[in-house]
Structure formats: structure tokens, C-alpha cells
């Protein structure tokens, strides 16, 4: 009997769903037309629906008749005309669902036909669930689109200040929660001490008002090497804001490296180390105090791999913490979900090397097989996507999800506390 391959579900998203989620979180202020059937248009009501932003979404509501007869593009034309007629917006975005792609609706041609007929700029993105789409690429593309809509608004670039920076790659919900002591605020404070004036933070959940504000900055600091590559390009080309890439500042070593780069790029001319002496000392002391406890801890990365044998960007982001865990003295093991075949092993190895990781890793067949690596010990901590939390905890292991390790020296206490499982963490 022919041996069947077990396929695990792909770690990727429906592009339309991803776009809608991002646009909703970004609280976009331009109209979006979904050329889709009514079920796909319903995606706007799922997850992060925002009442005000909901009103920015329109749908052609393709019927079965439109699908069979292929006359849905007429509805799209009517919808574009109606939105332009009513609002005369500066920009409109057209997205489409799988159905229109399967039946071959000429959405691109229809959009082309409408372009130049009014002052409204019509943007189109082909968004379907039929092709592999990495969620982080969607986030990047949405950011690019937002910046594209802002490119001719010169007023947004007035009063640009020297040494003012945007921090790119933050999980915005944390950065904006000023009352959350586990948030990024301590790190932002350190950054100020390093001579930088923070203009705004930009992340997947940043509202469009922050994107607009970001155009007043002098420079972008991006510490997520996998996020916002296109965004960085359009900042540079259309808005004249350069982006510098820096390592994620977790732990003492990486944080100081980070501040060193920032300081050099901004030309602040200050000695950061002397400015942060107190913070460095406290971080070092706390690490020394818990050295023995940390040595007992084993961090297990549990990473899913995509259908094209690469690992997802969230996981890559998580892997950027590898050196930090080692700095703490923890034992680290990398488990990657996937068939243990040479082709797969090589693809994963190459992906890891791209982000500078030469460590060995173990491939395991599917989600269930991962259990055998998890020993039920409270000293073993699974580090992975939040989706794995329940699974790991059910097996008796502790769990830390990507994004829980926070940047900066003052966050060392927080980071160590979650690893040693101190009360409250």
C-alpha cells in the first residue's frame, strides 16, 4: 500500500481575512470595497471589529447568479461609483475573495478602467485564501498600503524634528497600555536616556492616526527583522525616513548593543553606558541573584513549519530571543514541526541561518509527536505561539508565548520572573 504523508494544517492565513483584520485594527479612515460573496464580507464582523471602522467597509455581495454568470464586475463598478459619488475619498482600496479569482473576474481590469475617472486613487490588492500567505507579510503589505495613501499629504511631514524616532515592530496593545507595568514603557524611558526622542510606535495594531504621526519622525528603528520590510522601503522612498534594523534588545548584552546602534545613528554624542549605569547594575544583580534557578530551566521552542518547509515569521521573531535565553544560562532546545526528511531539514536549516542561528534542531512529525519531547517538569518551559499554550500546560509544562519577553534593562526582572515562575507570572 502506498505510504500516505500526514499533512498538518498550514500556519498561514487567508489573505482577505488578514487584510480585513489589519485594516480594522489600524482603524483606517479610507473606504474599502470587498469584491466578494456575502459570507466573506462577513469577516469584517469577526475578531477585532471596530464599530467606527466597520462603516469603512463595503461589499459587492456577489450572489450565486453573479458567480455563475460572471457579471460581478458590474457590481464592483457600481460600488466604486457609489462610494466615489457619495464621499469623493482621496483613496479607495479594493480587495477580492477566492470566489472572484476562481471564476476569473477581471478585477484588475475593472479597477484600471475606473482609475483616472475621478480624483480618487483606487488601490487594488489581490487577496484570496488560495495562495500561501504569511500573516506577517500581510501586516507588512497593509502598512505599505497605508503609507501609500499618505504619500501626497505634505502637511503630515511638517515640523519634522531631528533625533526623533519611530519604533517599529512593537506589539502596539502593550506599548500603548501605559498602566501595564510589564509593558514597553520602561524600555522607552531607557531609550530617551540614550538620547532619542520617541515620536510614536508602529506595530500591527497601530491606528492610522499613529501612522500619520510617524511621518514627523527623523528615523525609524526596526527591531523585528522580519516585519515591515516593505514598510521600511516606502518610508524611505516616499516619505524620506530611513529605517535602521537593530537586534531585539532582550537581556543586557543585546540591549546595550541596541542602544549603541541607536546612539551612533542618531549621533546623540552621549555615553549611554554612563547614563544607564543604574539600570545595568540592577539587571546584572537580578540575573546573578537568580543564576542558579535559571540554570535548571530548559526552554523548548515548539515551532510549526509552513507548507513550503519554512518556519513562520512569528517563530523567527521568537528565535531572536535565543541568545537572551543563553545569556540567562538556560538550556535551550529547538523543536520544529515537520516531516523529518532531508529536504525539509535543509529548508529549515537555511531559514534559521538566514536569521543567524546555527543551533541544532529536532524535527518532529506532527503536533501530537511534540508531546514526547515535553517532560511534564515545571523546569521545562515551552516557548511558542499562543495557540500551543493549552497543549503545553495540559502536559504539565509551563508556557511562555512569543511577545512575552520584553525589551530593555528594566524589563530584565520581568523576563527572569516569568522564566523562574515567580508569583504573579
Amino acid at each position, binding site marked *: 500500500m502506498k505510504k500516505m504523508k500526514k499533512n498538518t494544517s498550514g500556519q498561514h492565513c487567508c489573505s482577505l481575512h488578514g487584510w480585513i483584520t489589519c485594516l480594522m485594527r489600524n482603524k483606517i479612515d479610507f473606504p474599502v470595497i470587498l469584491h466578494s460573496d456575502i459570507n466573506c464580507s462577513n469577516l469584517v464582523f469577526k475578531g477585532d471589529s471596530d464599530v467606527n471602522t466597520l462603516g469603512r467597509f463595503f461589499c459587492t455581495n456577489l450572489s450565486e447568479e453573479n*458567480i455563475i*454568470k*460572471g457579471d460581478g464586475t458590474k457590481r464592483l463598478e457600481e460600488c466604486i461609483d457609489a462610494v466615489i459619488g457619495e464621499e469623493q475619498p482621496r483613496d479607495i482600496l479594493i480587495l477580492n475573495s477566492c470566489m472572484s479569482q476562481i471564476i476569473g473576474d477581471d478585477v484588475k481590469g475593472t479597477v484600471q478602467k475606473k482609475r483616472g475617472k475621478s480624483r480618487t486613487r483606487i488601490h487594488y490588492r489581490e487577496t484570496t485564501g488560495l495562495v500561501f500567505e504569511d500573516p506577517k507579510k500581510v501586516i507588512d503589505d497593509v502598512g505599505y498600503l497605508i503609507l501609500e495613501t499618505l504619500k501626497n499629504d505634505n502637511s503630515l511631514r511638517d515640523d519634522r524634528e531631528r533625533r526623533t524616532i519611530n519604533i517599529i515592530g512593537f506589539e502596539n496593545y502593550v506599548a500603548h497600555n501605559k498602566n501595564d507595568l510589564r509593558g514597553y514603557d520602561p524600555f522607552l524611558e531607557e531609550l530617551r536616556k540614550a538620547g532619542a526622542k520617541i515620536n510614536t510606535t508602529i506595530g500591527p495594531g497601530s491606528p492610522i492616526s499613529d501612522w500619520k504621526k510617524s511621518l514627523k519622525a527623523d528615523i525609524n528603528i526596526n527591531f523585528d527583522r522580519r516585519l515591515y520590510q516593505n514598510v521600511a522601503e516606502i518610508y524611505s522612498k516616499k516619505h524620506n525616513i530611513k529605517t535602521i534594523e537593530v537586534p531585539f534588545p532582550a537581556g543586557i548584552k543585546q540591549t546595550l548593543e541596541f542602544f549603541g546602534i541607536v546612539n551612533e545613528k542618531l549621533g546623540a554624542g552621549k555615553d549611554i553606558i554612563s547614563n544607564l549605569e543604574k539600570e545595568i547594575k540592577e539587571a546584572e544583580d537580578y540575573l546573578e541573584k537568580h543564576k542558579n534557578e535559571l540554570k535548571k530551566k530548559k526552554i523548548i521552542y515548539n515551532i510549526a513549519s509552513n507548507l513550503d518547509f519554512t518556519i513562520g515569521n512569528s517563530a523567527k521573531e521568537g528565535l531572536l530571543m535565543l541568545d537572551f535565553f543563553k545569556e540567562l544560562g538556560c538550556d535551550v532546545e529547538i523543536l520544529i514541526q515537520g516531516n523529518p526528511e532531508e529536504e525539509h531539514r535543509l529548508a529549515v536549516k537555511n531559514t534559521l541561518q538566514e536569521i543567524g542561528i546555527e543551533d541544532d534542531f529536532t524535527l518532529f512529525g506532527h503536533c501530537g509527536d511534540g508531546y514526547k519531547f515535553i517532560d511534564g517538569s515545571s523546569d521545562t518551559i515551552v516557548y511558542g505561539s499562543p495557540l500551543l499554550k493549552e497543549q503545553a500546560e495540559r502536559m504539565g509544562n509551563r508556557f511562555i508565548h512569543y511577545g512575552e519577553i520584553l525589551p530593555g534593562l528594566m524589563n530584565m526582572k520581568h523576563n527572569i520572573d516569568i522564566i523562574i515562575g515567580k508569583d504573579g507570572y
Partner: protein
Amino acid sequence: MERIAIYGKGGIGKSTISSSLSASIAHSGKKVIQIGCDPKRDSTIRLTDGERIPNVIDTSMAKQNDLKKADFVKNGSLGTDCVECGGPKPGVGCAGRGITKMFEIFEELDILDDNNYDVAIFDVLGDVVCGGFAAPMRKGFGDKIFIVISEEIMSLYAANNILHAIRTYEYNGIYFAGFIVNLRNNKANLDHIKRFIKATQTEIIATVPRNKLIVDAEKKNKTVIEQYPDSEIATRFGKISGKVLGIGKSKVKRPNPIDDVTFNNVMLGE
């Protein structure tokens, strides 16, 4: 009820053969329904005196929940009933979904109840380009499949593809019952057809020669059965229809579709 599906390359004469078989079977006293599964909606035109009947897709969209059998099942000549699926204009939409939709409507309205008809003939669009056009096979509507071919090589190429589709869906109980050769030229060399039949382990059940009376009848939007009932060709269709109805699953062999390289070799006689 006999459920017969007629497949074959576009323009090969499926509608002519289907309509002639429907007319001939109806002429023998059986109750027949012919279903055109082609967005061109001209399968039954020779049974309706050239009248374009309302098609299932347009009618169902217009009537929504109020759809009735009489809205799209129309009387044709010699007591036949006629249905046209309908579908999109060329180059747009999804004709395959249209055909699938029609079958859903058939099920809802019990159109093909055994008590309604003795024979149902499905005249299906050319090549099996996607799952929708295999709906008569997939859904078990047309369980006895015939393929119309001619001496043209491409008609055999299409036939071979259709044999692949039959093999794919044979778990539904469908079976290939044989080829009907619709000759373009009565003097054509048919050696390549013989080689193809041998290679695919199939059979020809009937040959329809090029005939002036068929062409004349079609010009008048009639079948040759209705227009020239006493002609030799009408009698021949009577015999073919008897054969079509007489073939059962136990009498046919499972076809063996061939790959493209073998097909080319067979055509070249190698």
C-alpha cells in the same frame, strides 16, 4: 429509468445524436427527457422547432423560491420533454457551477423521479474541463456514458480525457457504454480509430454516416426522425437507440484510458 450521458469534443455532433436518440426513443413510445448541459443552450433546439426554451439558471434566479418544474421543463416534439441548463456568456463566470446548480434544482424538485420518465439523456458540453462538467458523472445522474467521436484526431484526444474522468468517478456506479462514431467523411480512413479502440480496450456501438437528410432536417430545426421518419437514416437511429438502451453494465468492459505519449504513438500507428 435509464440515465444516459452523451459526451464528446465540442462541435462533434453530440446535440444532433442526442436529439435524434431522444426523438427515436420517444417515437417508440417511451417517455424521454433531454437535458442540455451546455451554456450555449442549443441542445434541444431540434426538438422544439428552433424555439429557445427558458433555461434553468436564468429561471431559477428569477423565480427564487417559487420555481416549478413547468418553468423550465418544456414539451418537445414526439412527446419528449426538454431542459436547457444555461449559464454564463463566453469568457466569464462559472458554467460548471451552473451545471452543478441545475442538478441541485433537479433534486429539490424531483425532476428525475423514476415515475416521470423512462429515459433521461444528458447532452454534456465538450471536454470535461472542470468538475462542474463532470456533474452528471459525479452526482450519479448519467450512469451510462457514451462518447461521440469522429475521424478527427482531436475528438479521440477529448474522448481519452473523458475516459479518464469516467475512471475517476466510476465509484459512483457510472460506466462507459461505448463510442458512437459520427462520421464527417464517409470515405475517411478509420485505421487510427481502430487502433485507439484497441489501445483503450473499448468498443464502438454505432456509426452514424454523413447524411444529407440529417443536414436538411437540422436546417428546418427538426430531427431527422421527425422530418424524415421513413428514411433509412431514421431507421438506423431506431436501431442505434435500441442498442443504446440494451447495453448494460454487465455487457461492457472497463475502459483503459492511455497517457499522452501512448496516444500520440497510437495515432501514428507505432
